């Protein structure tokens, strides 16, 4: 009786949902989205016509590069009359946008439509990533972790294995500690003319590629996950002030500095995409980065590596080889709080459509696109076959920590971007000096605010959608 009733309700809900979708309720509504020109959007942008067919709402997506995008969003948020109803949000921006009241609170809608959006199937931390003071302000469209990619074919090559064993006294395998990671980077750094996996190199081969550019704080996007892997935190929980000059941060800066020698010579200019390009072309032995682009390593249309070798995937190394909660990130869609009610409703429909499990599965099957965040997709054996890194994503997020979400994130990104870049370039003598400079600059801005407020800004209240 009861199951029957439930099934009936479910059927009724489905029908009503379908009616809602087919009724073209939003005829005449025009939505504009301020977005990034990266995979979390580029897959969706060409098919927004399908959404219009379903709902009648027209959606136009304007895409911009990541550097400078937050500037446009901030200016958009400070305007009285919005020109964009939908905004692409990197989860660290939730603090500044949330504290400014720029984003619509999605909590009630998510609760209402929990079933429709398969809320239970979404990895919880990806939702937590988008909360500010417990309220959900954006919905994940791509869910990331920071992990290592490596040349599986080289690691498994018998000559290389033997030589590595010979030189370092232990077995060549994906690094569990940063010392191992550096060993491997050193081991595989070869000049043109030397041999790699039995073949003579016609150009230089590098042990590693990390982002060291200061542009848009690119270097910090690698630095903070490494700091995390040493157990580091951004903020002092007692004072709400900068803690990014602690032991873990120093260790992370040291790791990056030691890796310089094994990076391509233009390391100081390596942005995320240039850095991943080295891995995708199979020109480096390992490279650790955010999982948004990992899928490319499996797709011969988007990368050279699958045609000349094979990529392997592993969690980030840690300081002592013991597991540390990894760092996550979410690339999400939010709604401008200044949009009209009708626009907001239409925008929520769009978010549900564009981030739905069906859509995500569609992207997964197309072999390109987003970093997945539904457990059922990541755990799907057929998909895991095609995308071995899904297992890494699934496992590491069991116990993970959200990224920075402080309202002064832009300052952190810029200040540490420049300070770390100067240290890597040799303009600053020591990591300590660089990080102390960074923290001093951040604290100068934060100290004018009462401690109570500072502590509120670092407070990660559990998402209300789960209550």
């Amino acid at each position, binding site marked *: 009786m009861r199951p029957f009733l439930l099934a009936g309700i479910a059927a009724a809900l489905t029908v009503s949902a379908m009616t809602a979708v087919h009724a073209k309720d939003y005829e005449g509504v025009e939505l504009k989205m301020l977005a990034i020109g990266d995979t979390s959007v580029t897959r969706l942008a060409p098919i927004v016509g399908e959404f219009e067919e379903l709902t009648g709402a027209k959606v136009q997506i304007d895409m911009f590069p990541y*550097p400078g995008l937050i*500037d446009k969003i*901030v*200016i958009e*948020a*400070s305007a009285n009359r919005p020109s964009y109803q939908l905004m692409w949000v990197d989860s660290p921006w939730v603090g*500044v946008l949330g*504290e*400014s*009241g720029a984003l619509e609170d999605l909590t009630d809608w998510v609760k209402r439509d929990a079933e429709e959006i398969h809320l239970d199937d979404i990895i919880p931390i990806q939702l937590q990533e988008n909360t500010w003071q417990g309220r959900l302000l954006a919905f994940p469209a791509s869910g990331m972790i920071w992990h290592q990619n490596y040349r599986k074919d080289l690691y498994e090559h018998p000559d290389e294995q033997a030589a590595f064993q010979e030189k370092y006294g232990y077995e060549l395998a994906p690094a569990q500690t940063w010392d191992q990671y550096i060993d491997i980077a050193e081991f595989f750094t070869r000049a043109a003319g030397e041999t790699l996996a039995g073949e003579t190199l016609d150009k230089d081969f590098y042990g590693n590629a990390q982002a060291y*550019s*200061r*542009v848009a704080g690119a270097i910090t996007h690698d630095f903070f996950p490494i700091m995390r892997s040493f157990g580091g935190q951004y903020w002092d929980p007692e004072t709400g002030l900068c803690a990014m000059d602690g032991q873990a941060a120093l260790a992370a800066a040291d790791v990056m500095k030691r890796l310089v020698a094994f990076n*391509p*010579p*233009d*390391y*100081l*200019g*390596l942005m995320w995409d*240039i850095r991943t390009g080295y891995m995708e072309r199979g020109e480096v032995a390992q490279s650790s980065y955010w999982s948004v682009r990992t899928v490319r390593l499996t797709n011969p249309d988007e990368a050279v590596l699958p045609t000349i070798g094979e990529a392997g995937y592993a969690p980030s190394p840690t300081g002592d080889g013991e597991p540390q909660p990894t760092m996550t990130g979410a690339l999400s869609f939010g709604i401008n709080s200044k949009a009209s009610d009708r626009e907001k409703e239409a925008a929520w429909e769009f978010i549900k459509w564009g981030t739905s499990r069906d859509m995500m599965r569609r992207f997964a099957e197309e072999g390109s696109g987003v970093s997945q965040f539904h457990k059922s997709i990541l755990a799907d054996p057929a998909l895991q076959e095609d995308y071995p890194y899904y297992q890494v994503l699934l496992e590491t997020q069991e116990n993970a920590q959200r990224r920075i979400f402080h*309202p002064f994130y*832009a*300052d952190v990104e*810029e200040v540490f971007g*420049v300070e770390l*870049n*100067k240290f*890597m*370039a*040799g*303009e*600053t003598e020591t990591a300590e000096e660089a990080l102390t400079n960074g923290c001093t600059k951040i604290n100068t*801005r934060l100290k004018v605010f009462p401690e109570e407020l500072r502590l509120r800004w670092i407070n990660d209240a559990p998402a209300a959608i789960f209550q």
Partner: protein
Amino acid sequence: MIFLLPAMLVLFLTTIYPMLYAGYLSFRSYDLAKPFVPRVFVGWSNYQQVLTSGDFLNALSITFQLMVITLSIQLVVGVGLALLVTQRLPGMGIARTLLLIPMMISPVIVGLVWLFLYFPELGYLNYFLSFVGLDPIPWITSPNWALWAIAIADIWQWTPFIMMGTAAALTSLSPEPYEAARIDGNTRWQVFRHVTLPQLKPVLVSLVFLRAIDAFKIYDIIFVLTKGGPGDSTEVLSLYIYRQSFTFWQMGVGAAASFVSLIIIVVLITLFFKSLNRDQTA
């Protein structure tokens, strides 16, 4: 009088009002991105923050380094090209036109053009260097090279400006003193040094002056090529101001930095002209 009104209105709206507003902002705490940060009068503290900031002083120093490098090379090469294109040689008309092209291009596009040339690993410049057996140069990714890479792009774009002004001045010079000098037997260099150059001086001073003001404000090329990096090796004043205003969103600090820069350049220009006038009267 009535006819002046529209012009004055436009001037007020586009120049005077923004200046006044920037002046007002420079005494306030104003975070555009964070409405929750109090927007209050803070006295001279924005100015104090700018003047005591190592970043600002570094930016000032970088700006002047870049100015000295680009201006001196633009001057020498520009005058040299002007001497060349004003010769009655075949092809000089076309050469003159072609050489003007860089100047007509928007600096952002110039930046992009050079980005393609300098681009790490994929840039054409290193590709060409490899043909002559040279190692790749980390143009925009090394603090030792980046300022030069920017200087080269700026020199490429603005040397034609010096060339054009100088060529115009050269063609207006009377030819007879040169014939007199030829008969007297002074060498080409002596004639250039003692006859041409002194006569060009007023024009060159104006050209350098205009370029110096532009160089002080250089922004677009750097924004495209390095955004101030690597480290802070190409962080010029405009970028510093931009970062204060639009990365840290401290509009007040940005406004204060703008005014400090304005005062510096006004003082320098005044000193420059004072010293020139001393030269003239001496």
